[in-house]
């Protein structure tokens, strides 16, 4: 399970640390001390290592992760675009500048079934709201001729933190 260790700049303790916090800190008086007890390192080391992972950009953020749906943002639309390869970067950067966009990724086309190479996510409280935000973005950028599709979510079968590392010995 430690095969990825060498190519991502993580050492063994960081690997263990991620395994123990990937599903969340304990809600306790001294959560980092509880983690440190599991790992056999000091509380200060846990804190320092988390800081370091944030500084190195391996953690994009560290904090409260909310669930949009439960908070009233019931509509989640994946919008997929077919963008010329040499323009995808510019369009991706433009899309991400909109505050209602929570993700924007380039992914490979799978021709002939799948022509789209740019994916973004919009969360909103109603379908109508999501559609309006999207239409506004399209008209502001003059993207009327760009092929796209909107894939609203119908049912959520599962949503949880990724288990990046499985560590049977450690309770997560």
């Amino acid at each position, binding site marked *: 399970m430690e095969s990825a260790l060498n190519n991502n700049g993580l050492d063994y303790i960081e690997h263990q640390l991620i395994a123990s916090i990937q599903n*969340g800190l304990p809600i306790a008086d001294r959560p980092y001390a509880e983690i440190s007890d599991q790992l056999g390192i000091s509380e200060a080391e846990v804190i320092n290592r988390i800081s370091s992972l944030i500084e190195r950009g391996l953690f994009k953020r*560290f*904090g409260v992760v909310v669930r949009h749906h439960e908070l009233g943002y019931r509509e989640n639309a994946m919008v997929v675009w077919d963008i010329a390869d040499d323009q995808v970067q510019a369009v991706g950067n433009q899309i991400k500048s909109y505050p209602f966009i929570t993700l924007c990724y380039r992914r490979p086309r799978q021709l002939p*079934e799948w022509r789209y190479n740019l994916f973004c996510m919009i969360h909103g409280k109603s379908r109508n709201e999501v559609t309006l935000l999207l239409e506004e973005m399209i008209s502001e950028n003059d993207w009327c001729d760009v092929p796209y599709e909107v894939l609203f979510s119908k049912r959520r079968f599962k949503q949880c933190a990724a*288990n990046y590392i499985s560590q049977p010995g450690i309770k997560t």
Partner: protein
Amino acid sequence: MTKALDKNIEYGEFNDQPYTSLEKVLMNDFQHDFPLSSQPFHEIADRYRVDVSQVLNIYERLIAEGAISRIGPVIKPNTIGASLLAALLVPEEKLNEIAEMVNSYPEVNHNYEREHKFNLWFVITAADEKRLEIILSEIKEKTGCQLLRLPLEEAFHIDLGFNLKWNQH
């Protein structure tokens, strides 16, 4: 507190959520920069001049209710292990059964039905490429459905938190 929070979202106002102002602050203000100190919940409690037990109780409850998924890291994609977005074209009558089978893999962390010909969308995060391939081929074999493999090639923007534009009342 952060740039992300300054970006005001033109969402309609919330008025159907029964959260107190303290609950709203605890959800909104610590998506970034959760305190990295020995007693982070004390630090938060002191900041808002409330008792730490209140803060702990609120976080416990919001996690139990599902409003908060966790307090922890959002890890840069492809830092650890191997992950992939996949989509299946599933006949309507088999959707529940197949969704359940996909869910049974602990490596599947998101799984949604979406309105499209490709109607089941899920993310797999496995320990390594080898395990990822095994899961994908098992799913393909078990379902016989057409499968799209859509690995991340470039991230322009990843989940940097979410400004919950609360009703001010």
